[in-house]
């Protein structure tokens, strides 16, 4: 969950609407960033490594990374192919390649400061 320190002393509907818009924009931008970083991490950890002689890469895992927004304050990024979890978590016979965990950690480090900027822009 992101936290932001923005102080307001005007409790009018306009202010509430501006804060909600700022949060919504932040959710959309951050979700899109996580999706982009997930694909970058997949490329780095999987597709840019030497190919195995025992199976052919199709790119289906990368193509299955999508995002959607169940509500104004939620964004979800998924890799929808059924073997995505095995690539991400690995097995004792294959090392983990946590493309999504890396993406979230990268974006998380910048997301908090960006939230209060988005809210302040809407309040102006």
């Amino acid at each position, binding site marked *: 969950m992101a936290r932001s320190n923005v102080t307001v002393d005007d409790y009018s509907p306009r202010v509430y609407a501006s804060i909600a818009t700022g949060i919504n924009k932040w959710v959309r931008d951050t979700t899109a960033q996580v999706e982009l970083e997930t694909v970058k991490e997949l490329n780095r950890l999987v597709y840019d490594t030497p190919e195995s002689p025992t199976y052919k890469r199709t790119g289906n895992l990368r193509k299955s990374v999508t995002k959607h927004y169940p509500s104004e304050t939620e964004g979800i990024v998924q890799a929808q192919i059924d073997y995505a979890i095995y690539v991400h*978590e690995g*097995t*004792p*016979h294959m*090392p*983990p390649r*946590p493309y999504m*965990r890396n993406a979230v*950690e990268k974006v998380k*480090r910048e997301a908090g400061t960006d939230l209060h900027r988005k809210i302040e822009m809407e309040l102006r």
Partner: protein
Amino acid sequence: MATTTAIAAAFQHAFTQLDDLECPVYANVVPEGGSYPCVVVQAYGDAFDTTAVGGQRVKTNVDLMVRVAQQGNDIAGVMPLLVSLDEALHQSGPATYTAGDVDSVIRQREVFEPTVSSGKSWLFAGGVYRFFVS
């Protein structure tokens, strides 16, 4: 200043702590001909640095996936090994190694993954452990 080889230090600590386990401990993957049950220690993603003003590296958080691998579905049979593994790693440290100093270790989450592969049942269970390395 924190070490440049934090992941290596975390592996050194994991192998030192797991040395008394009654099964083989492997790094990265179970080798061909490896025996079961065994423990596999794998790096889980990038290790993120905490840096101070001026760019001085203070510490690095290293996540390792440490799992027991066993053929079959015998959960009860693998339980003593799981308990020993967690007792050896969780809240262990501080310790000094050639690759760096491990300040402490905390389990981030438990993992439990029964699966079927090539017609055989497997059980992979353990946890993701965060090593704080300086």
